[in-house]
C-alpha cells in the first residue's frame, strides 16, 4: 500500500513541475488566445542559458542564475511579442501556430548548433539528494518539495496580479474584449508583450528547476510542450489553479503507470490525458466559454 502512496506522492511532486511548465502557456492563451508552440523549446533554452550563465559567472548554484535569467527571459518574451508575435495575432488561428512552430524549429536547431546534441544537466548539489520525512512513513525529496512550493507560489503570485492589480485588470479586460480595452486606454501591444514577458519569466523558473531535476538536450522541448499542454487541457482552460491540478493529475498518471513498467510512464500519461479529454472535454475546472 505504501508503494502506491509513494507513487502518488512522487506523481504529485512531478506534476508540480508540469504545472510550472504550463503556467506561462495558460497565461498567454488566456490573455491573447495564442498558443506558443515554441513554449517547450523556450524552457529548454532557459535551461541551457542557466548552464551557460552559471559557468560564465562562476556561480556556485544554478538557482543563482535566476537573478540574471528571470529579467533576461522577461525581456526576451517582451521583445518577441512586440516584434513578431503581435503581428501573428488576429482572427486566423493558422498563422500563430505556424509562426510559433517555425520559431520552435529555429530554437531547437539553434540550441543544437550552440550546445551540441549532448544531454546536459544542472547540478543542484546537496539539495538534490536531501529528503524529508513525511507522516505515514513516506519520504519526499527536498528538491521536489521545493519545486512544489515554487509552483504554488508562482501561481499564487500570478492570481494575485490578475485579480488585485490594475495591470491584472487590464490583462483580464483585454482577454475579454481587446478592442474595447483599447478604447479604455489599454495599450494592447504593450500589454500583450508584458503578458508574454511574465510567461517567459515563469519559463525561466521552469527551465532551471527541470534542468536540475533531470537531464535535457536540444530536442527536449516538444515533450515539455506536450506535458504543459496536457496539464492545461486536463485542468481546464482559463484556470491557473486548474492548470496545477492538471499537471499533478498528469504526474500521478505517469508515476502510477511507471509502477507497471518504466517504459509505460509516458504512454500512461498520454492515455490518461486522452481518456479525460473524451470524458470531460472541458477539463476539471473550466472557466471560459471559448
Amino acid at each position: 500500500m505504501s508503494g502506491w502512496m509513494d507513487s502518488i506522492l512522487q506523481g504529485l511532486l512531478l506534476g508540480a513541475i508540469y504545472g510550472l511548465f504550463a503556467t506561462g502557456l495558460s497565461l498567454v492563451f488566456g490573455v491573447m488566445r495564442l498558443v506558443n508552440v515554441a513554449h517547450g523549446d523556450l524552457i529548454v533554452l532557459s535551461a541551457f542559458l542557466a548552464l551557460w550563465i552559471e559557468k560564465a559567472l562562476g556561480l556556485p548554484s544554478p538557482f543563482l542564475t535566476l537573478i540574471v535569467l528571470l529579467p533576461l527571459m522577461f525581456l526576451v518574451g517582451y521583445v518577441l511579442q512586440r516584434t513578431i508575435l503581435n503581428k501573428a495575432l488576429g482572427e486566423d488561428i493558422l498563422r500563430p501556430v505556424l509562426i510559433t512552430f517555425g520559431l520552435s524549429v529555429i530554437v531547437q536547431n539553434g540550441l543544437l548548433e550552440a550546445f551540441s546534441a549532448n544531454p546536459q544537466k544542472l547540478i543542484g548539489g546537496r539539495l538534490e539528494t536531501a529528503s524529508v520525512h513525511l507522516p505515514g512513513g513516506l519520504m519526499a525529496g527536498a528538491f521536489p518539495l521545493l519545486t512544489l512550493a515554487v509552483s504554488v507560489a508562482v501561481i499564487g503570485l500570478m492570481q494575485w496580479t490578475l485579480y488585485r492589480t490594475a495591470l491584472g485588470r487590464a490583462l483580464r479586460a483585454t482577454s475579454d474584449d481587446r478592442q474595447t480595452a483599447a478604447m479604455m486606454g489599454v495599450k494592447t501591444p504593450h500589454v500583450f508583450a508584458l503578458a508574454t514577458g511574465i510567461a517567459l519569466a515563469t519559463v525561466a523558473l521552469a527551465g532551471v528547476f527541470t534542468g536540475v531535476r533531470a537531464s535535457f538536450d536540444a530536442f527536449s522541448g516538444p515533450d515539455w510542450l506536450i506535458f504543459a499542454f496536457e496539464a492545461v487541457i486536463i485542468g481546464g482552460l482559463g484556470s491557473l489553479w486548474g492548470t496545477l491540478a492538471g499537471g499533478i493529475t498528469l504526474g500521478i498518471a505517469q508515476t502510477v503507470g511507471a509502477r507497471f513498467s518504466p517504459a509505460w510512464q509516458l504512454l500512461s500519461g498520454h492515455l490518461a490525458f486522452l481518456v479525460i479529454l473524451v470524458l470531460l472535454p472541458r477539463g476539471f475546472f473550466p472557466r471560459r466559454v471559448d
Partner: protein
Amino acid sequence: MKLLTVSNLNATYGDFQALYGVCLEAAEGEAIAVIGANGAGKSTLLNTIAGSVASKGDAIRFAGEPIGGLHPWQIVARGIALVPEGRRLFASLTVEENLLMGAYSRSRDAHSLDEIYKIFPQLRSRARQSSLSLSGGEQQMVAIGRALISKPRLLMCDELSLGLAPKIVGEIYETLALIRERGVTLIVVEQNVRQAMAFADRVYCLQEGRVSLEGISTQLHPDQVSRAYFGIRQNQSQGDLPDLDSGSPGVRSDFNSEASGPTNSGFAGEGRA
C-alpha cells in the same frame, strides 16, 4: 472653435466603403444626435472618431488637433469616451472592475467610483457582482459609467436604447441630460428617432454612409426626416411615407410615449445583453 470637427470623412472596412465624405461638427456643451437605419454607418462614424477604425490625418479634429492616425488608447487619453453598441462590458470583470477600467487611461484625472455611484445609485449595491448578472438597463448604466469615469470632454453613445424598455430608456436619457449639464459634449447615435431628436440640439441623419440631412432638431419636419432616413429624394413619390412620429418633433419632455421609430427596434423587453 468647435470641439469636434469631422470633415469629408471616408471610412472603409477592407473593400467595403462605409462612410462617404461625412461632415459633422459639435460645439462644446452641445448634444448631437446621429440617426439613420441599420447599416447607415452610424457606428462606423463613432468607431472612427474613437480610433477603432483608422482614418486619414486631417479628417477628424478634436480641440483643434487632428486625431485621425491615433490609436484608441491615445484618443481616450485626450478626452473622448465611447459607450459602444451592445455595451460590451468585460464579462470576467465585476461591475466595479468594469468602472475602474474606464479610468485606466486617466488614473489621476478620473472621477472616483463614488462620483459614478452618485449618478447611478443602483450600481453601488451591485459593485462586486459579475457584470453579466445585471439587467439590460443596469448594464447600460455600467457602460455609461465606465465611459464617464475618465472625465471625457466628449461622450459618444452608440444605440443606448437597444434592447431596453421605454421606461428605462427614459431614465437613461434623463441621466444623460444631467451629464450634459456638467458640461460634457454628447454625440448620441440612435435608431429611436423620436428619442434622439427630443434630446439633442442638432441632428445629423446618415443614409448609406452619407449625411442626408442636418439641422436643428426643433426646426426639422418629420417628413423631411423620414425622407432623409430612407434616402428618398425630395421630388420622389409623396404618398405612403412611413410614419416616423405621431406627434411633432421638438417636444423635449415627452419621454414616455411609444417611440414609433421606423425599424422599431429595442422593444423586445429589457435585459437583452
